[in-house]
């Protein structure tokens, strides 16, 4: 767990990570699941609009440009952190990250956003149950490193 006091310190640390995939989260938020139901329609903590669901919503289908959003560059991460910080009500905003080369569960894959090379989707590559996707996303979260209270560095 790391803490930083200035933007420069944080930016240089982020750059030193190499090819990373990161998501900021306000204290109380889960790094990869949405547990707040005011953020749109959810299925087991997965936003309906993030993935390609079957009509019955019990299954998730493969799509290379749909998935949970991750930042792959400092510039993108900084923008998301600013939004989170403004909405944090004074609570800490931490950055959770994994290396691109890190193991992720079978059936999931990071794909670059064709519209923004600094943005990635954690996509589904094979049909799976919605509950399985939620478990896999939780597994990823458990293995993410944390930069604690990164808003101090903005």
């Amino acid at each position, binding site marked *: 767990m790391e803490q930083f006091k200035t933007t420069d310190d944080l930016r240089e640390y982020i750059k030193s990570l190499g090819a990373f995939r990161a998501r900021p989260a*306000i204290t109380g938020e889960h790094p990869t699941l*949405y547990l*707040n139901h*005011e*953020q*749109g329609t959810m299925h087991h903590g997965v*936003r309906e*609009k993030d993935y390609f669901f079957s009509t019955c919503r019990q299954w998730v289908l493969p799509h290379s440009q749909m998935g949970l*959003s991750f930042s792959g560059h400092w*510039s*993108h991460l*900084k*923008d*998301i952190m*600013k*939004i*989170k910080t*403004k*909405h944090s009500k004074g609570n800490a905003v931490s950055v959770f990250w994994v290396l691109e080369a890190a193991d992720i569960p079978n059936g999931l894959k990071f794909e670059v*956003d064709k*519209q*923004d090379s600094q*943005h990635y989707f954690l996509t589904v590559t094979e049909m799976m149950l919605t509950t399985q996707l939620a478990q896999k996303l939780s597994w990823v979260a458990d293995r993410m490193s944390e930069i604690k209270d990164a808003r101090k560095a903005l």
Partner: protein
Amino acid sequence: MIRYRFPEEKEALLHYAITLENKKVEEILHGDGIKSPEEARELATFFWKMVDQTVTDSDKSLDIAGYKNLESLCEDVMQSLRSHFIATGYVDIWEEESDKA
């Protein structure tokens, strides 16, 4: 043209363009997107003002484009706008305004 990932993004942007009385942004949203550096700066500046307003509206539990917690909606809008700034060659202006926010 701005390619929104989700239709509620445009609804929210238009709502705030009207609420924050920004006719220039309304025209950009109704038109083909940004066509000049001046329009790029106007839209980028507006986005961060909109984010500030969503914080106020979230605190009041206002329903905007079907959402009461507007945090993830702002992230979605940001992604669509960033992509538009990249596609139109104005991403440096986006970065400058983001750094000021």
